[in-house]
């Protein structure tokens, strides 16, 4: 890695508060129960994966956690701060990468990160240095003055990671960070996330429906289906229940009754549309 990202600045003065504590969360959209009694917690420094097919409720859970929507009942706290009563503080502690490619294509790479440096109230004296640090760490130093519309999909994703890191978040939230990317770019994104983790020890919450990726990256995972967590534990624990040679795909099939690929076909239309839009933007 070419640059030092530094320790998370938002880290609490003591380690007593869990990065994420989610209790009996319920969210519905009209008649659809998107999240139906989800409880989990994440330990400091952990990489936690929410896994499941499209429409399982992963993104909705993350949207409550990032204060974008309110839950019907239940509660989520981030480092002890309630997402409803201390939303602004929670936002300060989180770096968030949404599912879609969400960099602004009309701006340069530098300007995209600059926007977030300003929105996170970084002091003016630190701004430029910090922006260059995160851009360098994501390997975008040479292209920072280019318009994002000239970037490849993998580069846009790395730029978004830079945006999410500029405030030195204590909790990094990645919603399907590799969706729509080719295998090479996917590997690259995961490599950067792992490096970051090793250097800063920040807590990471990610969602994915690529089981093999979750297996190698996550220290603990929760399998979600139809708004509920079907099983959670370390990948090794989950696989061990099924005997030697089992994969996470097998675990999913065992716990849910169908293969994750079959679920993709019937899963939530919103996510599928989003994914398509992302693919379209990538051209």
């Amino acid at each position, binding site marked *: 890695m070419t640059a030092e990202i530094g320790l*998370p600045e938002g*880290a609490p*003065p003591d380690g007593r508060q869990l990065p994420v504590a989610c209790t009996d969360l319920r969210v519905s959209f009209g008649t659809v129960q998107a999240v139906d009694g989800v409880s989990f917690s994440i330990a400091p420094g952990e990489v936690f994966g929410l896994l499941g097919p499209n429409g399982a409720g992963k993104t909705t859970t993350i949207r409550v956690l990032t*204060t*974008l929507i309110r839950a019907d009942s239940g509660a989520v706290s981030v480092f002890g701060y309630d997402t409803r009563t201390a939303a602004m503080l929670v936002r300060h502690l989180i770096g*968030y990468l949404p599912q*879609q490619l969400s960099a602004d294509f009309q701006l340069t790479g530098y300007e995209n990160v600059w926007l977030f440096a300003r929105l996170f109230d970084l002091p003016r004296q630190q701004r430029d240095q910090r922006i260059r640090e995160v851009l360098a760490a994501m390997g975008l130093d040479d292209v920072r003055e280019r318009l994002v519309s000239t970037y490849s999909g993998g580069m846009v994703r790395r730029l978004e990671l830079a945006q999410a890191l500029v405030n030195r978040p204590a909790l990094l939230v990645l919603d399907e960070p590799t969706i729509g990317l080719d295998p090479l770019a996917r590997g690259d994104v995961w490599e950067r996330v792992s490096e970051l983790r090793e250097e800063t020890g920040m807590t990471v919450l990610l969602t994915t429906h690529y089981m093999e990726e979750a297996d190698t990256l996550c220290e603990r995972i929760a399998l979600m289906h139809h708004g509920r967590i079907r099983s959670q534990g370390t990948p090794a624990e989950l696989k061990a229940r099924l005997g030697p040679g089992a994969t996470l795909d097998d675990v999913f099939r065992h716990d849910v009754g169908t293969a994750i690929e079959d679920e993709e076909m019937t899963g939530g239309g919103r996510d599928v549309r989003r994914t398509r839009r992302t693919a379209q933007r990538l051209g």
Partner: protein
Amino acid sequence: MSAVRVAQPSVSADRWSPATLMPPWWRLYPSRILTFWLVELRKIRHDRTELYTRAVQPVLWLLIFGETFSRIRAIPTPPGISYLAYLAPGIMAQSALFIAIFFGIQIIWERDSGILTKLMATPTPRLALISGKAFAAGVRSVSQVVVILVLSAILQIHFNWNPLHLLGVAAAVVLGAAFFSCLSMTIAGIVLHRERLMGVGQAITMPLFFASNALYPVKVMPGWLQGLSAANPMSYEVDALRGMLLGTPTALPLDFGVLAVAVVAGVAAAAALLPRLAR
């Protein structure tokens, strides 16, 4: 759940308190508005095509519509003021309106592309986010003011070129654009889809334009239209512009008061509907 691991290295406690993380509201709002303002300027700098294509319409209005109607002399203007001079402030407000109405489409585009989600997850209150967007529309419309002022100078329209008056003109146009962009973003929050918004946008821009004093004095309108015009912030904007550029008798405090109240109401309405776009 597996055992919770040992605490992270401790960081100074004051970094953690709300006071050091969040600036007070009176610094936060101007800071956010300035941010979106600067971003808009950057976008304009990177892609000037919109600037040029947007300049075409007011030029056509003034040169074709304006010149023709000056010859017909169908529209009564205040004594000593040509129809072209009377029309120019109206076209200024109209072109700002057309730019502002586009901002609802932009916010839906930003929602579809995930930009909005990410902005809303930053420590930016909804009101500050909408205010930022609204004043970004204002920045864009100031470019139209410049185009029309230059054209007016070429056409030898006798404006009051006092710099203070010109500043007032820019302020009125910024307020007008901020209100109409909020109106557009409010509708975006209701209809949620770009196609529907385009339809609604087209359906309301023309009535807003025609049911105002932009093209003709209010007193030539039928009574019901006069009523609509009196409720249309556009009329107050044009009134203020005419007052400052042409010296026609106007109630500037009333004009700016109505515009300011409209902006505050617009920001509140758009911000209240913003969560619908976050879903």
